[in-house]
């Protein structure tokens, strides 16, 4: 016989408005094993906590049921109260969610009250089956791995390294920096993007605790929070960075000069041995094996001849290393949707003067292919009329993605401003669905662009055609006046949607975490745990988690760094005791749990067991408590029920069902 105390929370009127909490407490007093039931206005407040502690002592309770909000909200808090202020094991606690799953979804007490009573009855039945659980200590490796070296990864790396922990940045491109150095000016302050991002890049390079691995990818991740064994493949660069001084002689002499430059979005060319842009970090070139004549055809070798330090090594191979990290930050960023594939009505890429927003950034950038002069890619003349189309791919569930990419309204306004600033007398038309400018000084920026003369037209462009004189005829609708609008533009800029980068899905499998339906990494809780994932020790920074602008990205990277620092500060961490546990006597070692485990936490091991007073060696399943996230997949896959989830044992769940079914 257990002595269960039931504590029903009013949550102000949140619960008490639709649930008669006193009636719930009265009903609870009649339930088996319940020794006490009472209510309080705010159970989570200091006064409410004291009430629970006092009653536990006064009534000698050995189990606690708290009927309040979702356990995701305050279960941890109540566990802490039990652990610190009472003699009870903190896992002898059940939370009946009578707020999110009851009072908030019902309108009147007629329905809310009986449902709350049922929920409490189930929690009481389960509480009787609860057992004491104990955590154990897991050591923490005091190093962090950042996957992705864009501004999010850079910020997180700097913050963690400044706190004194070694950091490795793995970047799959030839330089860190990501997209930010490609941009011209950043909204709303119009400060130069490269001027604020490249110093951070060099700070990373110079930081004694930051190691940068470019042209590298994470191949395998094993282990668990505090102890991830990560296998990284560093692809061949064909240049010995210990010898290379970054003088750039090889770049000037390389005969392969016609390769489209990725950094300039295909609007200029580069050589086969190259550095994507002058401020790249590491500030040394790499050889593009797909285009180098020496590597593809076996003849050339000019760079090796001109290199003053003999750094060129055509025999260079990939290097694979495995190292241990305590925490991992996913900062894999975004890509822009391939509009040419989806929007045939905008020319599908056939018109040179229909460009993406990122191409416009390069055009308007002083270090770009036109040295900052806005010139049409087709004939090099200055466009007098420019059309900006927003939401290309975004908010378009049929062709593109259903979500808003968040940054386009602002950089669209910025593009309009920059065009009118650089082209005197230029006309700019912005076709929009809505203008969304929530952010500090954002709406002021947009209003300023309007005052400068940008014409905002609410509607989408339905078709762009090119006339023989080179003008792009943009046909659209002004949905506010209901008129058809036709604009003869010299250039069209498409503000395209942010989408997850290629390989996000594979990486999610490698690091054992989940992607949302749009392909961005899923946070553990959208409000309360926005930079954590459901996998312990794995954090999110920047657009890897969803579209966002630079200020939000940097803020989130700092938040992820704070979480990592919080973890790495500890000598050891407490394990989650609510993990799967295998009853050796029932386990036949069939391996169903091994196959189904999403976290690779279960393995088959040989064990010597005592059975019928005989020693036998059998194969049985074993759970790695560090890896196990307590999802319970194995417990349902296990036919004889050998695998059980501590804290959610089959018995307790059966009793919950029974309690509900027999009421």
């Amino acid at each position, binding site marked *: 016989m257990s002595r269960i105390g039931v504590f029903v929370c009013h949550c102000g009127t949140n619960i008490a408005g639709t649930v008669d909490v006193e009636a719930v407490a009265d009903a609870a007093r009649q339930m088996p094993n319940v020794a006490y039931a009472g209510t309080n206005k705010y159970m989570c407040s200091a006064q409410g906590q004291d009430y629970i502690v006092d009653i536990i002592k006064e009534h000698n309770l050995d189990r606690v049921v708290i009927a309040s909000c979702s356990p995701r909200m305050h279960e941890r808090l109540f566990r802490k109260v039990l652990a610190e202020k009472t003699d009870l094991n903190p896992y002898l606690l059940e939370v009946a969610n009578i707020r999110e799953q009851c009072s908030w979804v019902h309108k009147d007490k007629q329905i809310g009250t009986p449902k709350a009573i049922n929920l409490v009855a189930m929690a009481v039945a389960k509480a009787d089956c609860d057992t004491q659980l104990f955590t154990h200590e897991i050591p923490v490796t005091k190093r962090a791995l950042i996957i992705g070296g864009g501004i999010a990864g850079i910020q997180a790396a700097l913050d963690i390294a400044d706190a004194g922990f070694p950091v490795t940045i793995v970047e799959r491109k030839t330089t860190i920096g990501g997209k930010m150095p490609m941009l011209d000016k950043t909204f709303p302050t119009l400060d130069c993007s490269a001027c604020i991002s490249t110093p951070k890049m060099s700070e990373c390079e110079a930081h004694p605790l930051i190691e940068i691995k470019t042209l590298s990818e994470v191949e395998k991740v094993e282990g668990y929070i505090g102890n991830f064994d990560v296998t990284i493949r560093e692809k061949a660069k064909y240049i010995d960075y210990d010898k290379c001084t970054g003088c750039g002689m090889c770049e000037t002499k390389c005969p392969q000069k016609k390769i489209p430059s990725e950094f300039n979005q295909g609007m200029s060319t580069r050589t086969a041995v190259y550095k994507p842009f002058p401020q790249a970090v590491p500030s040394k070139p790499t050889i593009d094996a797909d285009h180098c004549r020496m590597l593809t055809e076996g003849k050339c070798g000019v760079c090796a001849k001109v290199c003053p330090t003999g750094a060129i090594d055509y025999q260079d191979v990939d290097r694979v290393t495995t190292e241990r990290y305590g925490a991992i930050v996913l900062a894999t960023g975004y890509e822009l949707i391939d509009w040419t594939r989806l929007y045939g009505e905008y020319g599908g890429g056939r018109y040179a003067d229909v460009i993406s927003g990122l191409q416009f950034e390069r055009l308007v950038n002083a270090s770009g292919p036109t040295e900052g002069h806005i010139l049409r890619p087709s004939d090099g003349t200055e466009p007098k009329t420019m059309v900006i189309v927003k939401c290309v791919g975004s908010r378009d569930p049929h062709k593109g993605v259903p979500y808003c990419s968040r940054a386009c309204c602002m950089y669209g306004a910025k593009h309009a401003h920059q065009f009118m600033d650089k082209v005197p007398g230029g006309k700019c038309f912005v076709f929009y669905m809505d203008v969304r400018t929530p952010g500090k000084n954002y709406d002021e920026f947009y209003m300023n662009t309007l005052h400068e003369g940008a014409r905002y037209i609410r509607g989408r462009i339905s078709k762009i055609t090119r006339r023989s004189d080179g003008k792009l005829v943009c046909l659209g609708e002004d949905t506010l006046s209901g008129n058809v609008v036709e604009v003869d533009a010299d250039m069209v800029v498409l503000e395209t949607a942010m989408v997850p980068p290629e390989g996000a*899905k594979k990486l*999610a*499998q490698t690091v054992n975490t*989940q*992607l949302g339906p749009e392909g961005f990494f899923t946070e553990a809780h959208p409000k309360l745990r926005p930079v954590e994932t459901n996998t312990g020790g794995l954090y999110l920074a920047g657009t890897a988690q969803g579209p966002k602008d630079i200020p939000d990205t940097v803020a989130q990277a700092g938040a992820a760094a704070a979480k990592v620092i919080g973890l790495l500060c500890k000598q050891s961490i407490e394990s989650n005791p609510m993990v799967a546990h295998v009853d050796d*006597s*029932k*386990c*036949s*070692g*069939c*391996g*169903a749990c091994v*196959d*189904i*485990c*999403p976290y690779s936490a279960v393995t*088959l091991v040989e064990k010597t067991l005592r059975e019928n007073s005989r020693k036998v060696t059998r*194969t049985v399943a074993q759970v790695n408590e560090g890896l196990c996230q307590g999802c319970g*997949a194995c417990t349902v*896959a296990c*036919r*004889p*029920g050998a695998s059980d989830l501590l804290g959610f044992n089959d018995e307790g769940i*059966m009793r919950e069902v*029974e309690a509900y079914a027999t009421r």
Partner: protein
Amino acid sequence: MADVQDTIRERAAALLSSGEVSAVIGWGAGRFDDVRFPLVVKRAEDAGKLVFDASCVQMTAKRLLEHTGEGKVALVARGCESRAVNRFIADHQLTRDQVYVIGVPCPGMVDPATGETLKRCAECQVRNPVVHDELVGDPVPEPKPYRFAEVDRVEAMSREERRAFFDEMYGKCIRCYACRNACPCCTCRECFVEQDKVGWQGKAFNVNEARYYGMIRAFHTGDRCIECGECERACPMGLPLMVIMHQQVRDIDKLFGPYEGGGLTDSGPDPLRTYKTDDIEEFM
């Protein structure tokens, strides 16, 4: 089949006398001409007791598990037994080096009660062993008969008719667990029905509990079933158990296919116990 029987005896004697295997599992003569029993031969001189003819209706594969730890054991295996061997290996109940498979292509057995082809043989998809160390006799053609006729019939029923069909079926079940004991997928050390769960699964006869047993067993074996039909053959009450197993094979093929049944290879994993990030999850 007489030639095949002679070869089996010769090979069994040779394997036992050379010490390569510690036992040979096959069939032996019963009291009547048309009754055969599983026979485990441990001495070369007893190899002559092995029989192979159209009356070998039992599936012998599960006997293998009774002799693990006794060195290598030889199994005279038809298509169904060979799939069971793969099943055991995939379920980690056996390793490949613990068994020596004497493969025997099988033309189908005769039901002693009716004198016609045994039902499980008439539905057989794999007559030739899918795994063997040696093959005795020539491979037989694989007609791959349509095995979902009964499933089609039940599917075509109205809700009430179907309810009546299963009520009648489980109304007859005496819960002797012969189906489970015969099944090569049932290798748990402690079956769920033998665990005490008050109010969920008792000992007394009760149609609801019989149905509960049948349905849970179907889920436990659904994605691993090798379609040997031994459960149905072993059932003393003649329940059409394979209709449930065939239905599952077809559903799994539709949802996670292509899928032709369990035990065709010795490397699981099996569709319902595999975690894939691109699994169908329209309910989420």
